[in-house]
C-alpha cells in the first residue's frame, strides 16, 4: 500500500500539510499515507512540533523609549518626505499605462538595434567602397591568382605528407602547441606567401 514513491512525493510537502495549505483531496491522500507509513508519520509529527515551538516564542518588543529615540533620529533629517524622482515618475507612468508598454518596448528595441545595424552593415559597405576605390584591379587579380596557386600547392603537400600519421589531416594538436612554447607549428596564412 505504501510505496517509496509515495514517500518521496509526500515528504517535501509535509510542511504544507502541517500548515493546512493543501487542498482537500491532496490533504486526504496525505492523511491516508501517513496512517500507514511510520517514517512519514514521524517526520510529520516532528515538523509539527518544530512549528509549534516557533509559534510559542514570546513576542519581543523594542525599548520603551523607542519612539523618543526615533524622533531624535528624524530630527536630524529633513522632515519632509522625499518628492518622487524622475525615475519614480517614469516607473509610475509605466505601471499606470499598460496600453503604452508594447509601443514603448518596440521603440526601445528599434532604438537599440538601429545603431548596431548601422555599425555592422554600414561599416561593411564603407570598407568595400574604400577597397574598390583604392586597389588597382589588374595587379590585384594577378597577385591573387599567384597567391591562390601557392596556397593550393601548400595544401596539396600537406594532404599528401600526412605529418601526424593519423590520417586526420590536422596539423594543430595540443602536443604541437605545447612543444612550440605555446605557439602553433603551422605557419600563419600570411607567412605561407613566403613558401
Amino acid at each position, binding site marked *: 500500500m505504501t510505496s517509496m514513491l509515495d514517500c518521496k512525493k509526500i515528504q*517535501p*510537502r*509535509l*510542511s*504544507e500539510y*502541517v*500548515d493546512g*495549505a493543501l487542498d482537500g483531496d491532496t490533504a486526504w491522500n496525505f492523511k491516508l499515507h501517513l496512517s500507514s507509513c511510520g517514517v512519514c508519520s*514521524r517526520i510529520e*509529527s*516532528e*515538523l509539527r*512540533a*518544530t*512549528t509549534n*515551538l*516557533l*509559534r510559542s*516564542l*514570546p*513576542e*519581543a*518588543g*523594542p*525599548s*520603551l*523609549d*523607542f*519612539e523618543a*529615540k*526615533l524622533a531624535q*533620529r*528624524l530630527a536630524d*533629517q529633513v*522632515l*519632509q*518626505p*522625499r*518628492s*518622487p*524622482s524622475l525615475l*519614480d515618475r517614469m*516607473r*509610475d507612468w509605466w*505601471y499606470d499605462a499598460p496600453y503604452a508598454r508594447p509601443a514603448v518596448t518596440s521603440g526601445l528595441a528599434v532604438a537599440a538595434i538601429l545603431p548596431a545595424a548601422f555599425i555592422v552593415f554600414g561599416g561593411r559597405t564603407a570598407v568595400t567602397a574604400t577597397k574598390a576605390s583604392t586597389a588597382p584591379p589588374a595587379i590585384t587579380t594577378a597577385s591573387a591568382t599567384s597567391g591562390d596557386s601557392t596556397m593550393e600547392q601548400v595544401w596539396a603537400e600537406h594532404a599528401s605528407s600526412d605529418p601526424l600519421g593519423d590520417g586526420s589531416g590536422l596539423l594543430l594538436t595540443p602536443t604541437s602547441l605545447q612543444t612550440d612554447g605555446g605557439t602553433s607549428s603551422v605557419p600563419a596564412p600570411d607567412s605561407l606567401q613566403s613558401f
Partner: protein
Amino acid sequence: MYLQRSLILSRGMGQQSDSALVARCQKADITAFNEIVSRYKGKIYNYLYRMTGNAEDAEDLTQEVFVRMYTNIGSFRAEASLSTWLFRIAGNLSVDAFRRGKKERGLSHSLDAPVAGGDGEEGQSATRDVPDWSQEPETLLGRKELGAHIQAALQKLPPKLRSAVVLHDVEGLAYEEIAQTERIPLGTVKSRIFNARVALREHLRPYLEV
C-alpha cells in the same frame, strides 16, 4: 459597560487603514507616521530580533526601517501592502547587517538572557518590553532556556531560510505575502520553509514533544 463599549467602538472607528495612513504620510503628516510606527514597531522589531538574535541590533535596525520608510514614503506605491514593504526593508537591512558581520555576537544581549538592569548601557536591558512570561519562576526559567535554544537554532540557519520561517511561523505571514516580501516564487517560499523546519528539527530534537 456602556462606556467601555463606546471606547472600543470609537477606537475601532478611529482605526484608519494602512493605505489611508500612507496617503497622509505622503503629505508629510507626522501624526500618520507616528500611527504607522506604533502599529508596526512590535512586528518589525520581533522579526529583526529573530533574524539578528541581538536586541541591540534589532532596535537599531527597526529604527532604520522607519527612517527609511519616512524618507522614501514618496516613492511607495500601493502594489504591495505597507506591511510587505516594511518587512522587505527590514529583511534587506538584516541581510546587510549579516554581511557586515555586525550580527552573530552571541546571545549576550539576548532578550532570553536574564534581565539585569545596568549592564553598562544605562540599564537598557531592564526597559525591554518582554510580555507573556508566566509568573511561575520555574516555568519562567524553563521558557527562557527554551527560547534561547530556539533562537540559537534559528541563528544556525542561512539568512534566507531563517527569514522565510520567521515570517511564516513567528510573524504569521501567509506564503503569498512572503513571496511578495522576498520577491521570490511561491514554490521557493514553500521549499525554504520546509528546509528551515527540517534543519530546526535537527537542532531542537531534544525539545520536541512528539
